[in-house]
């Protein structure tokens, strides 16, 4: 019997009981649909996290000063200034895996324009800052080295601050503002960067030279840096290496003995990104395994209905055997039938899953990402389910005794 003929016989048998066939495949349909939709949503969420961290920079390290320790109570990292301005220079010049370094001093202060005022995060930093954060200047210029050297009173505004002080799409370059009581000149506007993964608005910020910040806000450029250091490694692959190198350098510079705790800490943003991704991965795996269970249940449904079908068609099996069907003909016929049910369920499930993912994406503005390999794997898996759960009924059919089968009423 040719494969096409076998398939035709199987399809005809299935179509003889359309409702039953549909209900049988429903388990597979729901299972595959759920897998596709879950994986699409999971992949979308993962992509969103990746984008969020890419916006921060995957090769970025933040060096924070150490903690205070008085009477056994430890303050958090950054509570005690342990990083010196010389440390900044040393990291820049002595560590080969470091591309650029920017000190970041931060304080929340009101920026006062001619009409409006807006309290925002003021960052005192160096020209490298925008490079490290891959943050282009949209209008005017950024902070320059002469600004840092001279401690000039220039300011770069974030888009949100521009919106609040001047209205959307205004060009404030050349305008005068005050930060606290100190007058500054707006020299540039940073491009729109959007929100962080945690919903923080990156654009609600303003930037001035760190020398100016230290003098006007912190009362002078002392030995210690009252903030953190932002470091860009040469690439995202060398980030971990740079972290180790900086740790070694700073321990050496701070004369820490073996066994002493670090008096600083280094945050690796790519590690945080990895942790976030692992979280999404775990969630996706969990949802996918729930869906896989429903595929299993669908397989049991197919086995059940195939057993019923074999019993119902005992006489047909007997007739086929009498006219010359060999056991393997019968086996393949019922196996193809189970396989067709499972694959049909898988294909309908794919359509349902893709539809669901697209609908959810549109309805809730979730990011979804439909992966072709997930579709392939789901259909292949449902085919596997069909074979695994179809083999027992098919074997049972093929081993019927032709005489008993012919006599069966």
């Amino acid at each position, binding site marked *: *019997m*040719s494969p096409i*003929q076998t398939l035709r016989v199987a399809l005809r048998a299935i179509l*003889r009981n359309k409702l039953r066939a549909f209900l049988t495949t429903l388990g597979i349909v729901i299972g595959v649909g759920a897998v596709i939709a879950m994986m699409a949503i999971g992949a979308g969420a993962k992509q969103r996290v990746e984008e969020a961290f890419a916006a921060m920079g995957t090769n970025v390290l933040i060096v924070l000063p150490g903690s205070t320790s008085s009477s056994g109570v430890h303050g958090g990292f950054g509570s005690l200034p342990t990083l010196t301005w010389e440390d900044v220079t040393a990291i820049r010049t002595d560590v080969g895996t470091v591309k650029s370094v920017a000190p970041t001093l931060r304080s929340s202060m009101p920026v006062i324009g001619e009409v409006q005022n807006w309290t925002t995060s003021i960052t005192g930093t160096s020209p490298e800052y925008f490079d490290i954060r891959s943050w282009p200047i949209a209008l005017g210029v950024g902070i320059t080295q002469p600004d840092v050297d001279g401690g000039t009173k220039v300011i770069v505004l974030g888009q949100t601050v521009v919106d609040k002080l001047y209205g959307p799409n205004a060009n404030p370059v050349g305008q005068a503002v005050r930060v606290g009581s100190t007058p500054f000149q707006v020299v540039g506007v940073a491009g729109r960067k959007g929100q962080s993964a945690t919903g923080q608005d990156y654009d609600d910020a303003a930037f001035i030279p760190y020398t100016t910040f230290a003098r006007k806000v912190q009362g002078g450029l002392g030995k210690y840096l009252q903030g953190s250091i932002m470091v860009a490694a040469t690439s995202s692959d060398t980030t971990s290496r740079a972290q180790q190198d900086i740790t070694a350098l700073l321990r050496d510079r701070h004369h820490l003995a073996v066994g002493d705790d670090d008096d600083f800490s280094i945050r690796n943003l790519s590690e945080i990104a990895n942790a976030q991704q692992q979280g999404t991965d775990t969630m996706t795996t969990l949802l996918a395994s729930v869906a896989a269970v429903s595929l299993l249940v669908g397989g049991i449904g197919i086995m059940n209905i195939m057993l019923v079908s074999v019993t119902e068609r005992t*006489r*047909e099996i*007997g*007739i*086929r*055997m*009498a*006219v*010359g*069907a*060999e*056991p*393997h*003909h019968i086996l393949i016929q019922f196996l193809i039938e189970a396989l067709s049910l499972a694959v049909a369920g898988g294909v309908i499930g794919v359509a349902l899953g893709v539809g669901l993912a697209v609908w959810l994406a549109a309805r809730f503005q979730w990011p979804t990402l439909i992966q072709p390999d997930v579709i392939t794997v789901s259909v292949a898996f449902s085919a596997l389910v069909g074979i695994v759960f179809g083999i027992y009924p098919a074997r049972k059919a093929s081993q019927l005794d*032709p*005489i008993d089968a*012919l006599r069966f009423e």
Partner: protein
Amino acid sequence: MDEGRVIELTDVTKVYRTGDVELRALDGVSINVEKGEFVAVMGSSGSGKSTLMNIVGCLDRPTTGAYVLAGRRVSGMSRSELARIRNQTLGFVFQQFNLLSRTTALENVELPLEYAGIPAKARRSRATRALDRVGLAQRLHHHPNQLSGGQQQRVAIARAIVNDPKVILADEPTGALDSRTSVDVMAIFQELWRSGITIVLVTHEAEVAAFASRVVIMRDGRVVSDRTQQAKRAEPAPEATL
């Protein structure tokens, strides 16, 4: 071995065991059937004639004894080999017709050819010819439930002859038909017999056995009578050909 011998049963027994009870359905049966014979096997129920039929039809295997069909030793063959023998050498006609429902007459007749691996086009033409031979050329695409009992049995006969078997085995082929239709069906068997096909037919009706050339009577798993006779000619009613 005799060239013309189609069926050769030598001291065949078949024993069924249910718990401690032993039932000897066949108790040392030896029958030879020559090519071109029309044998009617008679006997009451429980005489062993159905068991004999199952063994001759390669649906069952003897407990002891030898069975040679068309020169091939069948006892000891595997299930697959038996299936191929049934497909190539035998044609079955049953009391209950045993056609596939919701399948056209043509497709029913094509079924043995499908398992024989005959290409679709050849299948179609051979099945059409077989149906033509039993007078159903006008009913190719009818389903069994659209056909009368006699017509259904003729489809079954067409299915039995479509793969050019050596022997046709008919198990009470007229058991579900009225007497008029029975004669029509027997006329077809006689026509096939005259064209050279060997026929073995199981019946409990003497009127049906009268159309055969040889009558074997069984009782309690043994052959009690085996004689040749002048076959009575079956005359189909003229209006009943279709």
